[in-house]
């Protein structure tokens, strides 16, 4: 190329002057003759439905390549394609208007990690559609699990981490380990054999765990059969695969997902830890409350004792009180007797007076009665000039009808009796 832009060739170039658009067209046509396979990691991906095309960038560790394609070609890929390595087939081309070089993709295939991820994504969608991830299937982890079985590699850091964060803290937890290969060819087979066995051993919880790794390392835990086996397990199962950001199919079907082996251990011991905190709290409470209890009761007893002593004093004052009373009596003795005597005399006079009054009253009453009686007597009537006539039998004559003319009649006067004869009778006109 350098040869072209030499002084000697200037004249030649000047004779064939190209327009910009012509250059771009020439370049595009030349480029489009080259159809190749390209492998690269997707660094940008723009699949806006409003666009006519799909725009993406592929890169390796030294350069990047702008790519264009159709929706149809990238139909099966979503935004998750970013970061994946893909294998694309197409040709080089140029956007003439801007002279921008790009690669037009006609076919795409996931490679390596990308392929695995694609398969995994498909599997996740499939199992999700079947309802294997539904919350209704998730079993509850017992609050205080005692018999815990860990399905992991015995030599792994995962096992040691888990052990340290469970029995290391709470020896009451009994740990059992089912040693399996957690990566490599034999891994899936061993998991498929081991999981149903431990599921029938009446463990409180089963923990399937391993440390982090590449997608290929974790392949066994993205295996469909392994996932289905974990799903079918009757024992509550925690799956903790890899580091914080690794995610596996096994975790999706587990009853509880933990990010790391330590995280799984913490889930198992969370209530034990709470219990420990509670115990600490109670222990502090015990001290405070008992201190308070004793303080108040000792004080109460002291106070009661004080009151008891006061009562003792009040009894001690009793003789003094008695003496006081005695003195009082002595001082007032005479006046008291005099008072009593005087009241007795008063009473006597009152009594006498009453009797006399009553007597006089009765006497007068008697005299009055006597007088009335005297005024009404027959003798007294005779004295006033009245007479009483009697027949021969001595019976008082009250009517002229009871005597006959010529009959003997006695007449009584105040000072004596007369003997008379009836000469005639006549009625008195009243």
């Amino acid at each position, binding site marked *: 190329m350098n040869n072209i832009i030499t002084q000697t060739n200037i004249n030649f170039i000047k004779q064939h002057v190209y327009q910009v658009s012509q250059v771009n067209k020439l370049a595009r046509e030349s480029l489009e003759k080259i159809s190749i396979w390209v492998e690269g990691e997707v660094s940008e991906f723009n699949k806006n439905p409003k666009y006519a095309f799909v725009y993406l960038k592929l890169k390796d560790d030294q350069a990047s390549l702008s790519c264009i394609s159709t929706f149809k070609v990238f139909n099966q890929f979503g935004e998750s394609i970013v970061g994946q390595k893909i294998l694309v087939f197409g040709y080089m081309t140029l956007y003439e208007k801007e002279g921008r070089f790009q690669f037009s993709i006609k076919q795409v295939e996931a490679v390596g990690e990308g392929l695995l991820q694609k398969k995994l994504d498909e599997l996740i969608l499939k199992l999700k559609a079947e309802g294997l991830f539904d919350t209704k299937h998730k079993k509850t982890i017992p609050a205080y699990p005692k018999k815990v079985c860990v399905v992991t590699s015995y030599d792994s850091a995962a096992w040691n981490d888990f052990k340290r964060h469970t029995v290391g803290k709470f020896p009451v937890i009994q740990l059992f380990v089912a040693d399996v290969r957690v990566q490599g060819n034999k891994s899936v087979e061993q998991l498929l054999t081991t999981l149903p066995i431990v599921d029938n051993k009446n463990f409180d919880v089963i923990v399937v765990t391993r440390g982090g790794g590449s997608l290929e390392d974790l392949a066994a835990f993205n295996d469909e059969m392994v996932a289905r086996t974990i799903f079918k397990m009757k024992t509550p199962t925690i799956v903790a695969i890899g580091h914080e950001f690794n995610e596996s199919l096994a975790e999706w079907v587990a009853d509880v997902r933990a990010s790391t082996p330590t995280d799984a251990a913490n889930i198992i011991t969370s209530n034990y830890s709470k219990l*420990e905190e509670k115990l600490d709290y109670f222990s502090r409470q015990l001290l405070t409350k*008992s201190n308070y209890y*004793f303080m108040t*009761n000792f004080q109460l007893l002291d106070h*009661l004792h004080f*009151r*008891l002593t006061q*009562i003792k004093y009040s*009894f001690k004052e*009793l003789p003094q009180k008695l003496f006081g009373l005695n003195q009082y009596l002595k001082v007032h003795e005479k006046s008291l007797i005099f008072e009593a005597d005087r009241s007795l005399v008063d009473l006597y006079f009152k009594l006498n007076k009453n009797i006399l009054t009553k007597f006089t009253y009765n006497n007068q009453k008697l005299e009055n009665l006597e007088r009335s009686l005297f005024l009404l007597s027959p003798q007294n009537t005779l004295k006033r000039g009245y007479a009483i006539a009697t027949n021969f039998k001595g019976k008082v004559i009250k009517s002229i009808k009871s005597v006959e003319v010529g009959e003997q009649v006695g007449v009584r006067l105040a000072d004596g009796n007369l003997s008379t004869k009836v000469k005639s009778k006549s009625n008195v006109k009243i």
Partner: protein
Amino acid sequence: MSKSDQSLSFSKALKRLEEIIEKLESPDLDLEDGLKLLEEGVTLHKICKAKLTQANEKITKILSIDSKDPK
């Protein structure tokens, strides 16, 4: 003092002691009754204090042992 005083629980003994003092503090207290009550009260106070001291010592000991325990 009745024989049952020793066997009374702390709270019952304390309650009885409080009752006694209230009775003793009433103005129409009979001398003979008062003496009996006073005697009972002093005994109950002694019993209560002994029980409380004993319990306090025991609990202080238990709690200090507990806090020495490695967790």
